[in-house]
């Protein structure tokens, strides 16, 4: 659920086919995921889930798995 939604957002924002996105996807595995796109990802995720990340979370969300965990944490507050 959250996992699927996060992967959809990543695929959409980075313009990468959804099959190529998984928990391990990161700036190291996806060339499109640079610091600029990271910012766009954050904005899109916040809109999608109605949450707001803290600055330390933004910097630490360095792969899809960590993003899913952060989103889960904020949604369950």
């Amino acid at each position, binding site marked *: 659920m959250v996992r699927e939604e996060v992967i959809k957002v990543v695929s*959409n924002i980075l313009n990468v086919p959804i099959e190529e996105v998984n928990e391990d996807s990161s700036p190291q595995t996806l060339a499109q995921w640079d610091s*600029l796109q990271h*910012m766009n990802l954050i*904005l*899109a995720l916040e*809109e*999608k889930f109605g949450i707001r990340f803290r600055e330390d979370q933004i910097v630490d969300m360095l792969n899809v798995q960590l993003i899913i965990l952060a989103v889960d944490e904020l949604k369950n507050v």
Partner: protein
Amino acid sequence: MFNEYYQLNYSDLQESLRQQPKTGLSPLRLAVLRNVMVEPIEIYWKFLAKCSGFDTEIKFGQYDQIMAEAVGGAPELLNTKTDVVVVFCHLETFSQNLTRRFGALNKEQLKEECDRVDVFCHSVLSGIRRQTSAAILWHGFELPAYPAMGIMENATGGQQVETVRQLNDKIKGILCDIENAYYVDLDACRARVGVKGFYDQRYWHIGHAPYSREAYREIAYEDFKYIRALKSKNKKCLVLDCDNTLWGGIVGEDGLDKISLSKTNPGSAYYEFQQEILNLYDRGVILAVCSKNNEADVWEVFRSHPDMVLRQEHIAAAQINWDDKATNIRRIADELNIGTDSMVFVDDNEFELGLLRQSLPDVEVLSLAGRSPVEYRSMLAECGLFDALNMTEEDRKRGRMYKEEAQRKKSVELAVDIPTYLRSLGMVASVRLLDEFAVSRVSQLTQRTNQFNLTTRRYTEDDIRSFLKDEKAQAVTLELKDRFGDMGMVGACILRFQPDHAEIDTLLLSCRAFGRRAEEILLNRALQLARDRGAKHVKAQYSATVKNVIVRDFYEQHGFLITSQEAGNKKYELKVSDLGSTMPVEYLQIVTV
């Protein structure tokens, strides 16, 4: 576009951009100079560009290299191909003391710091202008939302806000002196979003990106009011539904006295909406009515209702019948001789609007569906679809001119034959050599005239001004009036002179002046001027476009010989000795200056 833009979220916009097919779009090259990260604005710009028929290429300059790039360090960024240069010179980044530590400055230091800002801005703007003639959009400095001195700022004449205001004023002065450069009011954008929602402090610290996405969305929308105006994509005609749009209720069912329209609540929402519409009329926007009603019922409201702000005289064209709205809007477009892509339609009925979106996708739709009438006025004020960058006297009168034209058309039915009819109009034409006062209007004509335009060359005001100074060129303008009213400048012709011949670079006529042989006046004057200059031949061209088929055989019809043809384009020549010099006889008076 407007309705969707504020409702779609980031992902949706991205999705929408990917989906739309990329055909028939004109290129738009944006160069961005900045000392802050503003990349998230790109998607908003791209979306708005696509809505206006542009395929954008956006290049961001290096972070905080505004000066270096402005003075020539980035030719790939600023060059002859650039269309618009956007500058984000964030004051806080440029000067910490003016923004964050205002109290640290003594009088001398304050003056020094302000001078530093002035010199920088001046150098940047003149530098950009040297690299490119592209339009420049300069975002103003944000006024301190929380001045260092707090409420003492106003009470004891503190200086911080006033200082920034004066810096902005100086920049506005510089922009006035630089052709094609505009001040974009960032504070106005911030006021609409609200200071509290305008900034993203997380990203300010993480990546020097100060603004929130609501801010980018608003700024992009403001930027595009300028870009649309620059590219003549701003809208010219507002088409209005009547029931539940101009008044509450349905006049055919409720009757004149039961519809909701009043200076007091609840009809005041419609009253104020009409006042906003009249603002547009004052600016030169053409008003039209498209309503499913009995005509008599509608006009009765316009004539007799004491609280109607709009009157019949403000409406240039109307289709009030039971046909579908798409057909009616096409009729209005034909009657006014304008393209459907210059129209905005306002209606509260989603069903009608949905049909319209399918059959006339060119027409911009402003949907009032689901909105409360108290929101109508601000919706119209916010949409910014009609914004233009200047207003000539003619623009101010345009609403009236279109109305007069409609009256002229009606009187055609009474005429016996065309020449008699034309004579009955009492037309007076003035052909003048180009002067400084005409520059703006001539440039406008070259930008907007598509049908009666032999070569469709687009010229900026600077270009036209240069013709004034060029000995090898001459330009004439044509103004027209008749007993129904004054049409203002309706045509222009630009000649270029070579040692032994003249060439007609530009010959165009506004659609308002069709069917009166006005083009013959222009052509004759041009040929006279060529002869006076000693030219032996006059050369001319027809450059074929989708829109100017109407003049494909114009030169042949006036005695020119074809010298070459290729892919629909034609070149012509006329020997000066072959010139007759007959002006059309249907004119009451032709004044040549």
